[in-house]
């Protein structure tokens, strides 16, 4: 308790507050840029923290982490160009709402859901981090593989209007995910002798290509058909004033989704290899199963946005749990944060709650405050950023391409990734014309390696006796049950509905 009180006074010091504000605003800006991500933002700002106190420096980094995940939703909603991979699911419903003149409300819902999810993750971090850390220790290769497989079973929910084409798109994504050197044996797969493909196809390049570049091609078509702005029609019906949230029943319907997605997101975030991106997809598809209006998913659903955003921000808090309690980074961002903590003289693990308790609780409180801060800023700027829908698309299109190219190139300064983005842009446009949804492909690319690598490791660990191995692990049995339910529940529900109508 005394450490908490001391941390409160530390977090309210001028240097930490300044660091918090820089991290929050900077994170929102970096996250909103397509191609730039929380990983890049944290790695670019890390050297700046060397001259700061450990508390201020690390508070700035965690604030940037959670704000960047939120910031990605802004461009996802307004321009259908996700700023971060974790916001790709938000674009599916956010952009149609912008076209309908409800972009401000969509940004408001994304803000509210991100704050809620972030706060749930922050409270979990503050109160039960050591217990959650022990839970993380129980996960092994088979559990990671089953989480990824569970994620793959939700591809059907993202399939769009044509289930067969959507599932095919997901499987193509899985195939694309195998390109590159095999992580277990080192043999190159489908690289055709190119060293640029040895590391595989970068998810960011694929995502920017499939979403942003393809969207710009659509923009060109729309302009030549006479539509000059994102908003459909003349824009007079657009809601750009007042409170940036839907009212009444529409708002009330969001709370169960946010609660469920935040809890699931926090647990998913705890697992190394899973993260905000995986969490947002899993929660989006689960949201469709529980939604009051599932028919709106893909056409402009506030419920879809709430699920995706609560899921991705709560996973940030979850990802910090194994980092702080065990010193195990679960993602690229937390790996860089681990480096930052080490540089500042902290030793992640049990000592974080004893020797470094003051700094640890300051980081956690800073993370909690950052979630509130970006929420306040987000709701204040919602009506202004939503006006992007009224900007002529002829100005937006080139900016989207320039930013996307910048973002993809800046990751590794590798021009080959820009070429990948270019290729995926054409692929994304052609896919949409042919009726294949791009979202399942992205999910397939993200989850393919996680599922395959961990499944093969699990086979080695089971020493040829997979069934006994799985039956001895209760968490695995739970995940298998979830996979089966996820796969067969749409068929079962259809049968139930048919029976009840008959």
């Amino acid at each position: 308790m005394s450490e908490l009180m001391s941390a409160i006074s530390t977090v309210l010091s001028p240097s930490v507050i300044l660091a918090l504000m820089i991290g929050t605003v900077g994170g929102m800006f970096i996250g909103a840029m397509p191609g730039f991500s929380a990983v890049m933002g944290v790695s670019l700002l890390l050297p700046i923290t060397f001259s700061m106190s450990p508390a201020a420096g690390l508070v700035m980094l965690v604030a940037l982490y959670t704000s960047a995940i939120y910031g990605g939703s802004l461009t996802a909603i307004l321009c259908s160009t996700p700023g971060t991979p974790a916001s790709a699911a938000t674009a599916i419903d956010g952009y149609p709402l912008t076209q309908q003149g409800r972009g401000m409300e969509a940004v408001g819902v994304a803000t509210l859901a991100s704050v809620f999810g972030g706060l749930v993750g922050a409270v979990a971090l503050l109160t039960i981090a050591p217990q959650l850390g022990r839970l993380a220790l129980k996960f092994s290769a088979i559990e990671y593989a089953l989480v990824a497989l569970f994620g793959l079973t939700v591809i059907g929910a993202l399939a769009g209007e044509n289930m067969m084409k959507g599932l095919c798109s997901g499987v193509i994504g899985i195939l694309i995910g195998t390109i590159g050197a095999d992580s277990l044996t080192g043999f190159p797969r489908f690289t055709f002798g190119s060293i640029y493909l040895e590391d595989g196809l970068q998810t960011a390049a694929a995502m920017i290509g499939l979403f942003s570049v393809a969207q710009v091609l659509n923009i060109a078509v729309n302009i030549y058909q006479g539509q000059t702005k994102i908003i459909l029609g003349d824009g007079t019906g657009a809601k750009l004033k007042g409170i940036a949230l839907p009212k009444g029943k529409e708002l009330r319907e969001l709370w169960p989704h946010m609660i469920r997605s935040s809890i699931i997101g926090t647990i998913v975030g705890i697992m190394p290899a899973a993260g905000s991106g995986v969490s947002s997809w899993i929660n989006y598809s689960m949201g469709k199963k529980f939604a009051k209006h599932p028919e709106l998913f893909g056409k402009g659903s506030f419920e879809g946005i709430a699920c995706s955003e609560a899921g991705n921000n709560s996973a940030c808090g979850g990802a910090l749990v194994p980092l702080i309690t065990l010193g195990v980074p679960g993602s690229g961002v937390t790996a860089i944060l681990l480096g930052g903590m080490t540089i500042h003289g902290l030793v992640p693990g049990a000592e974080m709650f004893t020797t470094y308790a003051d700094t640890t609780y300051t980081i956690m409180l800073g993370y909690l405050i950052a979630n509130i801060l970006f929420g306040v800023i987000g709701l204040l700027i919602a009506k202004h950023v939503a006006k992007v829908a009224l900007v002529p698309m002829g100005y937006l299109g080139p900016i989207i391409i320039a930013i996307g190219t910048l973002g993809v190139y800046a990751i590794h300064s590798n021009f080959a990734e820009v070429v990948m983005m270019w290729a995926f842009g054409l692929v994304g446009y052609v896919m949409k014309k042919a009726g294949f949804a791009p979202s399942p492909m992205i999910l397939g690319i993200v989850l393919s390696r996680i599922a395959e690598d961990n499944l093969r490791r699990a086979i080695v660990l089971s020493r040829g006796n997979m069934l006994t191995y799985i039956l001895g692990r209760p968490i695995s049995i739970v995940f298998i049950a979830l996979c089966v339910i996820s796969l067969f529940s749409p068929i079962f529900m259809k049968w139930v509905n048919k029976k009840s109508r008959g």
Partner: protein
Amino acid sequence: MKKIHQDVWCGVFLLALSAFGYFSSIDLAAKSPDSVVLPRLSLAVIAIFGILIVVDGIRKTRLAAGKGELPKQFFVWKEMKVPLKAFGFITAYIALFWCIGYMVATPIFMLAFMYHLKMRNWKVMILITVIFMAIVYFFFVGFLHVRLANLGAISTYLLN
């Protein structure tokens, strides 16, 4: 010639992709059988989907013929002209980026593409381009040290 629904071509493409992938993996399968399990499983599933999509495409072709309508076509020049031209601009930008670097290629691309997208207010176009490049230079290059200041392959060649 009888017009075929675009799904038939999509299905044929998927079957061709599956066959190509399978034959590309033969060498690897000999060296490391474990490495090709998931890729070949994916290719097999893609082939199955390819067949189903072809069958569905044939059904849609017959349905359209029965109604006296033209089935949905994959490549109609009239529809593809605009996005292909836009893609051409993006391709030229990528090539220019490689040749002369991001900082020089981007303003050229932005102005040209805005003009192609029917923007005609030069003051606004130039203002947007200047502000954008200023943000890129001062924030990304200056503050975040993103490496963009090189002048591309041509300058590297000339300097060497």
